[in-house]
């Protein structure tokens, strides 16, 4: 089925050759989707950041809108493309779009309703209802509503817009960062089923890491995502510790994650034009203290530890977040914590 091909294309990134320049190992990456957005909007690195975190800004949103309306919507492939594009857009621009979507539908509904109601207050109710509905969508990633809106505009307005609007009300495919505002009583399951995945007791095999473990991988595996921040870079990332089995791999991943960001920070003027990874400096020596940066983590007791000190499995089960610190700053702060820990034991 064409749709299936589409899905696999997206997983492998075949439909988007531009990805290869930016993200060598896209399989395991959550930022993969962003690559599409990056290409679409030109300045790859900075747009990658924006889109990932949903930096608000109407001007961004309208440029997105323009780009998207340029594309035709007929083929299923573009539809799929749309869905990927829209997924990359952060919450804030989306909510603007969603509200527009609703006002569209509210207006169309008004026509229908005014035929039935003789009095003006009916319209007010619709407006209020529209507000109600759009309030329900705030806090959810509205990328699907964008899709519908885009799809709705070339299609017939009026009756088509109304179901689109209804449908855009509450969708589930949110980003990992924002917990979607649930629609009351939806999906229609009993309350005891809602928390099954998170309340199952840890088994002998694995230790659940907390809220991050609710996020699942595309291939069905449960991920263990922890935040990772780098000194000097305001934007953090997330890594799935369960995707790796050694410190070396983790170090490589961190390097790949932040290389581009670091380059952009250093020289924002040239960052956009630099597409060649060889020109960027690799972040090395994260584990042995030899590099400019060192990788540390916060464990479940709140202590800051050097990454690499404990066996990998123990690290995975106790690490709560990661930081990439400047090695020069390391001796001042975290080693203090480490030595405190040692004296305590």
């Amino acid at each position: 089925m064409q749709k299936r091909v589409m899905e696999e294309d997206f997983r492998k990134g075949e439909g988007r050759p531009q990805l290869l320049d930016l993200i060598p190992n896209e399989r395991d990456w959550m930022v993969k989707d962003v690559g599409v957005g990056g290409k679409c909007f030109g300045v790859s690195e900075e747009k990658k950041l924006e889109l990932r975190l949903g930096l608000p800004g109407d001007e961004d949103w309208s440029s997105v809108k323009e780009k998207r309306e340029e594309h035709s919507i007929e083929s299923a492939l573009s539809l799929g493309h749309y869905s990927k594009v829209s997924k990359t857009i952060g919450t804030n621009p989306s909510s603007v779009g969603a509200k527009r979507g609703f006002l569209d539908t509210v207006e169309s509904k008004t026509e229908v309703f005014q035929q039935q109601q003789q009095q003006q207050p009916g319209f007010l109710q619709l407006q209020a209802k529209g507000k109600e509905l759009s309030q329900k969508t705030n806090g959810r990633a509205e990328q699907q509503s964008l899709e519908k809106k885009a799809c709705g505009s070339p299609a017939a307005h009026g009756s088509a817009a109304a179901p689109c609007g209804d449908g855009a009300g509450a969708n589930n495919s949110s980003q990992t960062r924002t917990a979607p505002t649930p629609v009351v009583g939806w999906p229609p399951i009993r309350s005891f089923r809602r928390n099954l995945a998170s309340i199952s007791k840890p088994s002998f095999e694995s230790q659940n890491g907390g809220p991050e473990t609710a996020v699942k991988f595309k291939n069905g595996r449960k991920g263990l995502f922890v935040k990772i921040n780098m000194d000097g870079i305001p934007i953090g990332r997330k890594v799935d510790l369960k995707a790796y089995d050694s410190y070396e791999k983790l170090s490589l991943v961190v390097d790949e994650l932040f290389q581009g960001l670091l380059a952009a920070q250093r020289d924002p003027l040239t960052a956009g034009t630099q597409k060649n990874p060889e020109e960027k400096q690799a972040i090395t020596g994260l584990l042995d203290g030899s590099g400019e940066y060192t990788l540390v983590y916060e464990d479940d007791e709140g202590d800051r530890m050097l990454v690499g000190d404990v066996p990998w499995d123990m690290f995975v089960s106790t690490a709560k977040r990661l930081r990439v610190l400047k090695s020069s700053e390391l001796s001042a702060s975290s080693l203090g914590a480490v030595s405190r820990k040692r004296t305590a034991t």
Partner: protein
Amino acid sequence: MTYFPEEVVEHIFDFLGSHRDRNAVSTVCKAWYGVERLSRRSVFVGNCYAVRPERVVARFPGVRSLSVKGKPHFADFNLVPDDWGGFALPWIEAFARGGLGLEELRLKRMVVSDESLELLARSFPSFKVLVLISCEGFSTDGLAAIATHCRVLRELDLQENEVEDCGPRWLSCFPDSCTSLVSLNFACLKGEVNAAALERLVARCPNIRTLRLNRAVSVDSLSKILARAPHLVDLGTGSFTIDHHAEAYHRLINNFTKCKSLKSLSGFWDASPRCLPAVYPICGNLTGLNLSYAPAIQGADLIKLIRLCLKLQRLWVLDCIGDKGLAVVASTCKELQELRVFPSDVCGVGTAAVTEEGLVAISSGCPKLNSLLYFCHQMTNAALVTVAKNCPHFTRFRLCILDPGKPDPVTNQPLDEGFGAIVQSCKDLRRLSLSGLLTDQVFLYIGMYAECLEMLSIAFAGDSDKGMVYVLNGCKNLRKLEIRDSPFGDAALLEDVGKYETMRSLWMSSCYVTLKGCKTLAAKMPRLNVEVINERDESDEMEENPSDLRRVEKMYVYRTVAGPRNDAPDFVWML
């Protein structure tokens, strides 16, 4: 027919099993009414507010078995406020006062207090069967009363209730003389259980065939219980967590192997995949399997288990089974009649675990499928059409696409055609739940084709009043209609007010119905109770509108011969 003596007529009526048949014969003539009412042993009350308990007692003095349902179905999803009603006490009181020899009581979605359970236990010496489904309001102390006083108790079946835990004492209240238990299900209890008391109880009840344990029961205990009760037919395991190297595990396997009669398995709380081989010996006999509480059983382990269950007729799983897993079900479980796939990741973050492909695979592999509850991330018209062709025997078809109002992702069309195909093909369809992007067209199809439809659930669907009207006009056998978040208003509501007297109930929430519409309905139909449920504070933005034109948040309409109820809380307006 007056030349038949009443005894003969009564004897003939004995052959009438269903409530509907008995209800029908009672309307033939006075004589038959008389015979029927005195010989009636079992009464089913679909809506506890449709008739007064005293009236039931007066009409059917010989009743031994009573079933009553309380809250509307959407209460399961927290759409009905807690204190709405549905109290069991008036029923138990009426029967106690009436001196009836009640032996069986089945309650669903009702508020049952410990006081009611105590009264029940003490009032009916022959009481044998208590089944509580989706009820609340009681604690384990109430269960203690039942255990203590019901000397000939055969069944204590607690399904998905909210039970307050007051300790494990209740189980020990079954006297040593209690040997009559056939069925014991306390899977929904959250608290600890006295393992020794449980094991002793099982040991002294030789007829026990159904036993569903709660999460607190360890595998060790399960092992011992299996050893004592190898004739079990239906087992709900406790927490199925063991270190698979331990001796406990080996004992467990041995004991499972001895249970040659086991047909149904459920529970598996906290089950980890490594424990599953313990049940392999009996998988070949299973007709029912419920793994929907076990999110840790996925992928290859799950598939391995399913491949052994050749006789499976009823399967409940989580959607982490995936389309691939469903394909395995399709190729293995040729006898499958009922499938339920529950969502494991409700927040919607993560993968699309099952899609239309899984359902299509099931439909082509399992032609006997007649009951479906399927939560998925997407569905296509093409898939639904295929399913309709493959499985024309559906009696229950409930599809829930997790994203409300989502269209066919391939064609971007509404799912009208797909559901249309279902109702057209499945002539025996009695229950249908819709989801996804739907226009009025789907309701036209439903009205045209779904002749046997008795219950319809609608959410985030339709464009205009026409949709609802199509359904009301078309579905002759409609008994329950529940609608949420759909653009149906007063015009639809008032189109055919007589229809509601042919139905048990109508629920509408977050629709366009106004207070005026409800009042009009109530005025026109005195034998309907029109309840408006308002939880919100009155002083919100709607205040500037004239009050009657305000939309009602929730409305529940039902036919009744009991008149307006007197136990409604403040936020429920009886119009």
